[in-house]
């Protein structure tokens, strides 16, 4: 399984086959999900129509956590198996995860103002999610801070693994400590506490976010591989030597 990452050409072929399905899934579930969220789903018995922010906020929060988990897993694979592609996948997921975290924070502030009466409080849930956002920014900065790309990759992978302790903290902060943020509504013991008429739009939007993330991740990995190939060709051309990676076999 891990060895798919050893062969970029095979990975690209596989990703190319999956990509159209990701776009199709994102378009269909995104369209249907938005329609359900805005027009079909009912207003909440306490919060009225402001509950519709949930259909953006919660999928974004889930993707922020999922993307970070993916970054940590691929960082571990990169450090242990040294497949260059694992670093590329981890690096591609970081800006996407940062985007989802930003959506989660901003929509959460808007929702918090309407329901709690404040934009922000420093409770354990909100603070740990803000830490996640800074972790993402740190990973972006760290990768760019080294002249030697390999060292930057390794430093970022280590930070990603250290930062992973934050993920269970975010998830369980609402159970471990007294927070203003309410406990989990969907992934909880005893089943979802959301009425099906609101749960289904939420899950549809979650699938849309996930498919969109997968599509952008594949494209981002493809762009990075092309960029490295280009870099290698330019270096080879600069040394006035034939390209080494077989792209231009007939040029030698």
């Amino acid at each position, binding site marked *: 399984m891990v060895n798919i990452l050893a062969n970029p050409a095979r990975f690209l072929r596989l990703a190319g086959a999956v990509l159209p399905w990701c776009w199709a899934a994102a378009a269909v579930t995104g369209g249907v999900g938005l329609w359900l969220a805005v027009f079909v789903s009912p207003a909440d018995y306490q919060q009225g129509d*402001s509950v519709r922010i949930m259909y*953006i906020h919660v999928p974004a929060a889930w993707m922020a956590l999922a993307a970070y988990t993916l970054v940590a897993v691929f960082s571990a694979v990169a450090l242990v198996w040294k497949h260059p592609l694992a670093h590329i996948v981890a690096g591609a997921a970081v800006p996407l995860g940062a985007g989802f975290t930003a959506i989660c924070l901003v929509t959460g502030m*808007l*929702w918090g103002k309407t329901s709690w009466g404040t934009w922000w409080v420093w409770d354990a849930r909100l603070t740990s999610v803000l830490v996640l956002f800074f972790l993402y920014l740190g990973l972006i900065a760290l990768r760019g801070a080294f002249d030697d790309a390999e060292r930057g990759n390794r430093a970022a992978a280590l930070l990603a693994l250290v930062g992973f302790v934050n993920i269970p903290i975010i998830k369980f902060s609402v159970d471990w400590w007294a927070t203003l943020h309410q406990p989990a509504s969907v992934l909880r013991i005893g089943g979802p506490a959301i009425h099906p008429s609101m749960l289904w739009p939420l899950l549809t939007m979650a699938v849309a976010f996930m498919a969109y993330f997968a599509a952008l991740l594949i*494209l981002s990995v493809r762009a990075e591989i092309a960029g490295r190939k280009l870099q290698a060709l330019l270096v080879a051309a600069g040394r006035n030597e034939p390209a080494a990676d077989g*792209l231009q076999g007939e*040029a030698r």
Partner: protein
Amino acid sequence: MTAAVTEFFRMGGYGAYVWPAFAFAALVLGGMAWRVLARLRASEGALDRMRDRAEGGRP
């Protein structure tokens, strides 16, 4: 008709919070795609041009 539309955008009084939330999400999601596609076009385009030049330059 217009009353229904106005009522819809008012979102039961929460329109000022609901619509900015959706708009911000659309902006960030769109920005993510724009950034990835721009990088993809740049690197794959440069690769294609190099390949064309190499093939055109052959005797």
